[in-house]
């Protein structure tokens, strides 16, 4: 019931983020008053198709000691498409001085974090609203950002600002199955593919870059690309998602 409502919202946000990134990429030399077209002309675009060559049906069901049939015997049905857990980002790119910091949120919905993967630019503040009827206690032990928001009820929300880049694993102290990843990045040039697997990173300053295809179970897949201002570079990713338990092999 949330999903049809959420998806457009998120897409809109992504578009906005892309725009911002593009602006930021162009702005180092231009003034803030410069028209957008001018800035846009100074940056390039990376665009492509992501293919998940392995399905996620290999994911394990919950461990049940008595193997009677039940919901736990089946793999959990992913709320969002797995494609949305993929992040594509550009490494080592120059960052514009001013970047608008939009607020993001990771909701606790139906004892799951939503979204499961959230890429953010360094310094972004993320809200953790509790949409469930139960208490949640969001915390992280990751070195990029270690925090514990404590227990809070439905409707309450707490926020964390991620000022260091890195992977931040999110957990709930009450529901140990809940987990999410906030991927804190050094620049704003990143994208999450659409359900169809199409992605687009805009406003990338021209130059030669390494683009990373990230998934939490996969070793980062990298490709180099040359971004020319005003042009769109095509870059497709094939991310082999291994079966569960074999993630790093």
């Amino acid at each position, binding site marked *: 019931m949330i999903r049809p409502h959420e998806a457009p919202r998120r897409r809109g946000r992504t578009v906005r983020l892309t725009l911002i990134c593009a602006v930021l990429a162009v702005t180092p030399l231009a003034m803030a008053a410069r028209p957008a077209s001018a800035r846009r002309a100074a940056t390039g675009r990376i665009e492509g198709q992501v293919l998940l060559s392995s399905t*996620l049906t*290999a*994911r*394990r*069901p*919950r*461990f*049940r*000691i*008595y*193997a009677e049939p039940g919901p736990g*015997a089946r*793999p*959990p049905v992913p709320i969002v498409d797995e494609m949305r857990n993929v992040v594509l980002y550009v490494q080592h790119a120059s960052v514009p001085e001013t970047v608008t910091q939009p607020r993001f949120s990771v909701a606790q919905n139906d004892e799951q974090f939503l979204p*499961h993967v959230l890429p953010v630019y360094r310094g972004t503040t993320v809200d953790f609203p509790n949409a469930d009827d139960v208490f949640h206690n969001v*915390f*992280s*032990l*990751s*070195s990029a950002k270690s925090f514990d928001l404590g227990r809070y009820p439905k409707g309450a929300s707490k926020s964390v600002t991620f000022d260091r880049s*890195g*992977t931040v*694993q999110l*957990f*709930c*102290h*009450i*529901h*140990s*199955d809940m*987990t999410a*990843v906030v991927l804190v990045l050094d620049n704003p040039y990143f994208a999450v593919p659409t359900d169809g697997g199409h992605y687009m990173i805009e406003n990338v300053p021209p130059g030669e870059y390494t683009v990373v295809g990230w998934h*939490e*179970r996969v*070793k980062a897949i990298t490709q180099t690309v040359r971004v020319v201002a005003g042009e769109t570079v095509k870059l497709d990713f094939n991310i082999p998602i291994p*079966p*569960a*338990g074999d*993630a*790093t092999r």
Partner: protein
Amino acid sequence: MQPADEDGRAPRTAAPSGGALRSFRRTPLSFRLAIFSAALAALVTCATFVALSMQVRTSTRTLFADELARNNRTLVNLQRTSRRQLVLTAALLAESPTLRSAIATYRVEQQAGAEQRADLTVTVQDELEKVGRDLNGGVLLATDEHGRVFAGYTSASPHPMAGEDLSALPAIRNALDPAINMKENDAYLSGLEVGGHYFSVGAAPLILDGYTIGTIVFGTPVDSSLVASLRTDFATQVVIAAGTHVVGSTLPAVHALEAARDSGGAGRLLSLGNDEYVAGVVHLGRTQLGTDLRVLLLQPLTPAVAALTSALRRDFIVYGVLAVVFAGLGAALLSRSLLRPLRGFIYFMHEGANRDDVHHEFNVDDASLEIRALNLSFNRLMASVRGKREELERRGTELAAANEVLTDEIKERQRVERALRESEAQLRQSQKLEAIGTLAGGIAHDFNNMLTVISGFTQMALMRLGKEHEAVHDLKQVSEAAHSAAGLTHQLLAFSRKQVMQPRVLDLEQVVDGMESMLHRLIGSHIALEVVHSMDAARIKADPGQLEQVLLNLAVNARDAMPEGGTLTIEIGFRRNRTGAQNATLSVRDTGVGIPPAVRDRIFEPFFTTKEVGKGTGLGLSTVYGIVAQSGGTIEVESTVGVGTTFTVAFPIATEYLVTDVNDDADAALPRGTETILLVDDEDAVLEFARRTLEECGYTVVKAHSGVEALTIVRADDRIDVLLTDIIMPQLTGPQLVERYLAKFAEPCIIYMTGYMDDETMRVELDEDVVLLRKPFSAADLARTVRTTLDARAALASAVDAG
């Protein structure tokens, strides 16, 4: 029959033990049956006991094996449950958000290549310790998704096996494998070996967002405490083995080790020391090093079996002895009841055989079929025997009757033949002897008369001459010669058997002695005569003349048997005959040729002779036989050819006393008398001799030359005291005269005189009290005879008068 056959074979085949075996075979059937039954009962009891003990053993073993299998199942279930509990506990621990977050975070950051987060490791360690401290010797480990130990806790070491790869441990391998669901629960169970300690462990995967990020391993110690617990739960011997190593045991170490090394399956029989055990095995899984952890439950078999067997043995001894006794008694009773009719039957047969009785039938109604069949067969046999015997008897009787008839016929015929023969012999003899007898008798009669005259007148001459006269000696010679001549005439008369049988008591010795000189003459000088007296005063009652003839005949035969000379022995003896009566014997034994057995039976036949023709009469022995038989005696003959012959004549001993003859004594005075005597004799010389003798003695003598004259001379009023008459006279014989005289006149004393007696007079039996005066007689004979007769009559008359 089979038994006989066996008895026959037994001595050959079983010679050494034959004696005992045979003596056993000869024991009564009932005894054998009793022994056999008792032995059988004992055997059956023993066999049953052995079989039952084996059965008990097997059953006990099976029972124990079953119980052990049950125990095993229980143990397996217990173990499964307990290890499910382990897995569940592990799974619960895996739910810990702290552990998950720490491990997941650590993992992610390790992947990212960031520096190792010791704080996360410590967190996990701390978390595990918190739980593990209360585990009472258990183990708690966390591994990463590769099976390497991330952190852990045991009571023995705070950081066990850090970093060690346990991916080989089946439980962990299975926990990490997402393809394996929990259907095979046991796959999550394993043993674990940590620093010499063993654990039974379960592993649960750490799953985060559908991905395995590690495992939690939870285990309880496998040690002596488990042994104690199992011992309490199952009440058996317990051995826990890790491979061939003993982790804990209720048995002695040596036996435990042995049990641990045994790799047998469930229900196996283990022999440890003196005891046997039924073993059951429960596998607790393999450790990371591949060591097999096992629990062995051992049920001791020996004590249980021993207890059961001893009880069984006691019962069997009691009941076995009872069975043997009762079997023996039962068999004895049975055999008795079986054999009783048989015994009765045997007794019956025995009795029947003793009495030779075939008529009685034996009947048993209450005996067994076999006995009744035997009885029936026996009765049939007896009936058959009886029939046969009756038939036989009937035939025997018939035969006997026929035989009797035949025998009677034969006897009759023999008697007739004998009678015929006898009469024939008598006829012949009488014919033969009639001639001799007539001749000899005539001569003897005339000789006797002449000898009486010679003798009488010689006597008278002797009396008249007196003793001193020189002619006396010569006259005595004449008298003796006359006496001898009288003897010879006697012999002649005896030979012709024309003599009167006048038995009197004799002394055999005197008779033999009297004949000895005559016998010497008869047998000749080439034969020696021996007379043996084995008995004194052998008195017999016989006619002396006849006895002399017997001896004479036997002596003549003996002489004829010894033509070359030899010895003739006459023996007088004494013996008892078959009826016990005393006999005097007269044996005549020669050393002659003997009598062949072929003719021995015929020697007494008349006219049987082996002598040359003309030499023997064939009458000698038959005469002897006749005389002996006439005298009431017997004659026997013993003879050996070439050695000699003995005739033995036996006479009954006389009971009367011997009357000794008073010898004639010319010198003695003759008895005198005054009675009147009628003297009758046809011989003038004899008549004259008698008249003179009697008149000299004082008697009045009336003489007559014949009977007729005598009857005419005597008047009715003449007193005649003695009638002295010759027997043989012309016209009227002595007895006829007596008869006629007695018819006319008063009864006188009657004295006969005779020289011989012919057949006719012999047939006329003389009265017993008749007085006989043999010719030739002497004057003394005459005088004494007359006087004695008169005196006897006078005595009788006075006795009659007195009476």
